[in-house]
């Protein structure tokens, strides 16, 4: 099973909704990750055939389906809202796509409904109406309905976003085991970095209607090719600091460290390699909150004098909000419970090994020293402010 999008574009009311989306997806799960209004839902609707693209082609198993109506496509769609037929029982809800397809005998339908319901853990709720179910059970019903018939393409648009935190955590684990090894193309969108990481599937990062990057999520987390990709996978959000690369050193807020080798290795343009001597270049430094520490920096660690603004204590971690140089916001995620007094001064330490260096508009990863510089991962030119 293969789903190929080739140069899909969509523009509405003068705004670009999808911009030259080209993707090749195979059987099993693919995550679609991006912030709100990145185009995730639009892309799913285009793949489903609910929105005709202005340009581009969509092929499923080599067949061009671009102009095939949604009814004739072999797709199932699970929405963020729990959409079920309110007047039908859970059983009838799950059976409805099977009944419409008319390719199964009655006994076959019954067997399939019970099978899927069991898989989704709602086997004992078949007689209930959707209104009598909790949110999690309603969404399980909607997913069971989508799973009832074998389809070429299964689309799940932020299926857990409207659920309680704990239900989300639980359903996440269930869904992962369910979709691993699926013979359909399963496209699953989320804005939640933790969800993207949990599924550990091939991942497409979307932003402003464009494909930012495609790859394995763990690899992207370790070596984000652009700032947008790093941001899409960071929860809590990344800390950003301004820096300058000059004479082989990266300078940042009065401290500096040797510029790590470029990543990926620069080919010809010398100015792309921060280790090279050359004119000073403005860069953006990004560090994840759990890599910022307080007190006790090892050799080579960068030290930033900081003012404590706020401490959030959760028991498992303390989120310390700091102000650097009176204007830059920095969050440190410290283990356990640590007490701080807002207004006091402290020093934040960052190991340069955990700093990502992006070019000045965040478009490209120039260096990440904790990471071996050998990678063939391609990067995308992205205008962050566009």
């Amino acid at each position: 099973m293969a789903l190929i999008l080739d140069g899909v574009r969509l523009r509405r009311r003068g705004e670009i909704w999808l911009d030259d989306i080209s993707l090749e997806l195979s059987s099993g799960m693919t995550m679609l990750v991006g912030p709100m209004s990145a185009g995730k839902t639009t892309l799913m609707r285009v793949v489903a055939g609910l929105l005709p693209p202005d340009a581009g082609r969509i092929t499923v198993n080599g067949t061009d389906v671009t102009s095939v109506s949604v009814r004739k496509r072999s797709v199932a769609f699970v929405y963020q809202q729990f959409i079920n037929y309110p007047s039908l029982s859970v059983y009838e809800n799950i059976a409805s796509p099977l009944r419409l397809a008319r390719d199964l005998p009655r006994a076959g339908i019954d067997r399939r409904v019970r099978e899927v319901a069991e898989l989704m853990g709602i086997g004992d709720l078949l007689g209930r109406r959707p209104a009598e179910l909790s949110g999690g059970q309603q969404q399980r019903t909607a997913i069971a309905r989508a799973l009832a018939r074998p389809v070429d393409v299964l689309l799940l648009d932020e299926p857990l976003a409207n659920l309680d935190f704990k239900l989300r955590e639980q359903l996440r684990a269930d869904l992962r085991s369910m979709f691993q090894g699926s013979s359909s193309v399963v496209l699953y969108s989320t804005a939640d970095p933790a969800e993207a990481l949990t599924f550990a599937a091939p991942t497409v990062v979307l932003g402003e209607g464009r494909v930012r990057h495609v790859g394995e999520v763990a690899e992207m987390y370790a070596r984000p090719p652009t700032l947008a990709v790093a941001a899409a996978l960071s929860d809590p959000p990344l800390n950003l600091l301004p820096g300058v690369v000059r004479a082989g050193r990266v300078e940042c807020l009065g401290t500096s460290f040797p510029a790590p080798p470029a990543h990926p290795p620069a080919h010809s343009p010398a100015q792309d390699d921060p280790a090279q001597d050359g004119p000073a270049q403005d860069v953006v430094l990004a560090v994840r909150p759990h890599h910022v520490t307080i007190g006790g920096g090892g050799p080579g660690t960068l030290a930033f004098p900081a003012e404590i603004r706020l401490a959030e204590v959760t028991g498992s971690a303390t989120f310390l909000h700091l102000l650097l140089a009176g204007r830059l916001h920095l969050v440190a995620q410290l283990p356990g419970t640590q007490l701080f007094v807002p207004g006091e001064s402290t020093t934040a330490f960052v190991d340069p090994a955990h700093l990502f260096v992006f070019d000045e508009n965040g478009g490209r990863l120039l260096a990440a020293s904790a990471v071996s510089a050998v990678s063939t991962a391609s990067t995308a030119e992205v205008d962050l402010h566009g």
Partner: protein
Amino acid sequence: MTDQITDATDGGAAAPRDEPDRRADAKPRNNRAWLLVLPVVVSVTFTALIPLMTVVNYSVQDIFSPNDRIFVGLEWFRAVTRDPEIRAAFLRTLLFSAQVLLIEIPLGVAIAVAMPRRGFWVSVALVVVALPLLIPWNVVGTIWQIFARADIGLGGWTINHVLGIDFNYTLDSTDAWLTVLIMDVWHWTPLVALLAYAALRSIPDPYFQAAQIDGASAWATFRRIQLPRLRGVLTIAILLRFMDSFMIYTEPFVVTGGGPGNATSFLSVLLSKIAVGQFDLGPAGAFSLLYFLIVQIVSYVFFTVLTRTGR
């Protein structure tokens, strides 16, 4: 468009942000939808288009008998626009529509606001409000013709004998006018109320709760929360009520027959008199077309003004 299928990059150098719409590349759409439109096209042709063309045909001819007719050009249009009786009827109808809108829209909204939002009384209120809408138009006319009679009608008798006001719609032109107006208000305000009620029901509870917390008065709540949400349905209500009241026929025909004198001779009453009563098909055709045009223009103006003010 690129031919190659890339999986990682979006070829950012192309910067397609400023590219013109690529609609030309779009695949052919499913054209079978046109088949679905066909029945509408056919029925509109037979019920509206062909009759309209017949009227156009009449309006430019002087017809003495089916076989004896001459082409007169725009003569009838000139005659109709200069006819003092038609002019008077036009102004009368305009005044009537204006009064209908001024009364029915605020009254309908007021009723909608006063209706309960939930609970047992919702269905009771809905039935009571919708009742007048369920009665056929000519029956409405008959009901009011009898109800308002000074001698045997409950309403008319009460006004004369209990309130002591001299009221007789068959003799007094003001009384006749008021009777037709009140009858229209009674008949059609519920439509406005129901439309407005549907819109009000769609406002989520937190808006009202926030207004309570903010200490908003009932008026401020209406002005700041409810009225903004009513714009859409009120546009529809105003259009419907204008068109309908501007073309009012059955009710005055049944109740007053256009009288006393010409007091309730609205355009439609006059038109039917010319067309059916006197069988002057030429002037009637020209009259109808002008009438049609006026309704179109005024509706368009209403629509444009009402939808623009929201921006």
